[in-house]
């Protein structure tokens, strides 16, 4: 053991301490959404202080441990009492969805959830104020289960973010890039870097999330392993960037929807809707025709399989439902299509 080893350990411990501290504050913040949540959480925090005093270890003595916890409890209480907006995203801290959330509202607290469906549920149940999900990518197309969930979720789209996605190959600091044999990341990211991986004889291995792969790499430091994630994730987990911009195509962009229980307050310039059509000739055409005749520009048409032979059609178009022309087309579409539902009118931000 050398001082260098010990300093490395300290850095690793500090990173984990901060990550855990942040996680505790997130959990504590979410409690405010429940009935009596703030009072119960304050009582629980008092218990945490006492527990710290009792279970204090050799070096972190009773008074010190209790003092640290009193400080944490105080900050958690302050957060619960604040009007901080919460945004749920899928993945770990450092995910592209979190970057999109920050681009939408830099002051909101982005809270990680494991699966997409967890994000939808958290918004639906009122545990968070908003959710942010990727819907489409220029290279990978539709983002897996998100659109299927969106068909039936009773949520409104209140904003959209169109963001460039630049992947980096990350390794633990000090690791020899020549020893890297495998790269861990989300399947979508691996697919976007296929040629880079082949050129450098790296085996792509699937992880549930890009940032999650970066986090595991920083914590476990498996030999010969790297992760593909954002520059933001590299900074967050103290990883070294071996190479930036490793995606195969230049134009790699992802579009995100911000979801809420209630519609956007401002008019916005874009709308999204979903509907089904009768199983007969020209049914889809007749719906689209309504928009064409009203001079409304369609920006996206996507079909998502529902049951075999039945497809949900996603439609994005320019305009706002406060514009009578657009509102008229929507009313006509409701009469013509099956289960036509306006998902929201919102402002789209392109980065």
């Amino acid at each position, binding site marked *: 053991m050398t001082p260098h080893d010990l300093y490395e350990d300290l850095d690793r411990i500090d990173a984990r301490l901060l990550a855990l501290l942040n996680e505790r504050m997130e959990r504590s913040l979410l409690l405010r959404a429940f009935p009596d949540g703030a009072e119960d959480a304050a009582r629980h925090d008092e218990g945490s202080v006492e527990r710290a005093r009792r279970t204090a270890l050799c070096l972190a003595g009773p008074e010190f441990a209790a003092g640290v916890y009193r400080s944490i409890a105080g900050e958690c209480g302050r957060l619960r009492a604040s009007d901080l907006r919460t945004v749920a995203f899928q993945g770990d801290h450092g995910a592209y969805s979190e970057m999109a959330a920050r681009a939408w509202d830099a002051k909101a607290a982005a809270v990680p959830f494991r699966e997409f469906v967890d994000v939808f549920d958290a918004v639906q149940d009122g545990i968070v104020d908003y959710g942010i999900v990727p819907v489409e990518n220029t290279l990978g197309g539709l983002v897996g289960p998100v659109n299927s969930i969106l068909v039936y979720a009773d949520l409104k789209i209140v904003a959209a973010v169109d963001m460039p996605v630049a992947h980096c190959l990350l390794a633990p600091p000090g690791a020899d*890039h*020549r020893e890297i044999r495998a790269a861990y990341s989300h399947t979508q990211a691996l697919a976007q870097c296929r040629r880079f991986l082949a*050129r*450098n*004889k790296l085996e792509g291995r699937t992880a549930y999330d890009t940032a999650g792969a970066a986090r595991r790499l920083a914590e476990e430091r498996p030999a010969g392993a790297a992760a593909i994630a954002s520059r933001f994730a590299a900074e967050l987990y103290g990883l070294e960037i*071996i*190479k930036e911009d490793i995606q195969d195509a230049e134009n790699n962009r992802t579009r995100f929807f911000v979801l809420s229980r209630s519609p956007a307050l401002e008019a916005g310039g874009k709308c999204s809707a979903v509907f089904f059509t009768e199983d007969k000739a020209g049914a889809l055409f007749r719906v689209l025709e309504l928009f064409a005749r009203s001079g409304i520009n369609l920006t996206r048409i996507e079909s998502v399989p529902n049951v075999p032979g039945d497809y949900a059609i996603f439609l994005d178009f320019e305009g706002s439902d406060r514009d009578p022309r657009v509102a008229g087309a929507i009313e006509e579409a409701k009469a013509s299509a099956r289960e036509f539902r306006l998902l929201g009118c919102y402002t789209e931000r392109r980065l």
Partner: protein
Amino acid sequence: MKDLKLTGSRPGAERTVIDVAGVRVGEGLVVIAGPCSVESEDQTVRTAVAVKEAGAKMLRGGAFKPRTSPYAFQGLGLKGLKILDKARRETGLPIVTEVIDTRDVSWVGEYADVLQIGARNMQNFSLLREAGKSGKPILLKRGMHSTLEEWLNCAEYILAEGNGQVILCERGIRTFETFTRNTLDLSMIPAVHSQSHLPIFVDPSHGTGLLDMIEPMSLAAVAAGADGLEIEVHIDPSSALSDKDQQLRPEAFARLMKRLTRAREFIEEMYAREES
């Protein structure tokens, strides 16, 4: 010369021209300039800006250094490659940098436009094969004790992997003369032109190791028909971590570039007049 199936001259066929990020190597005179070693971002970017202003078409700079002593500065490695990448973004100059380890070939290829195989590695056959597989343009320096035939056979290794983008570079050989660092063998320019279709560059910095000789040898190389030059330039040679005594200051390099242009014009005009 036997067995130079791919490297040997092809009667009647055109000479090889290599496109390096828009720079046509094998057409006109292409000058590669830059520091011996990448030492810092500031040193590399400032040198890059200066050599570009003077007319250099590509930037050189070593990130992995093959040093005589294991205790001498070995280069910044990956960090050096990132600095070169920054210099390229600032100036638009394509990057030429040496690779010394087969395990580094793909990684250097991710950052560089041309992979340089140095004199000491000329006959490192596994490195040559790996460089061939990379599909990147290769600058192959002549070994300091190698014959033309041995050199061209090394190029053949790269071409045999399906990579025809090889630039040869004469950088001086060992002789009994010790006044100069090496003996710059300019006769290799017409020799390569007669025996191969590949472009031939000259490195007067390593070829002589003496500042005062870089200009006369560069002019001589241009007169002999070299396709390009590779010249070491450092923003502040006295502080350099390697090859302190053979790196030109940017002002001296700019002056040299002006004279090279005039020399080329003169030579071209001379041949053109004789033809007519």
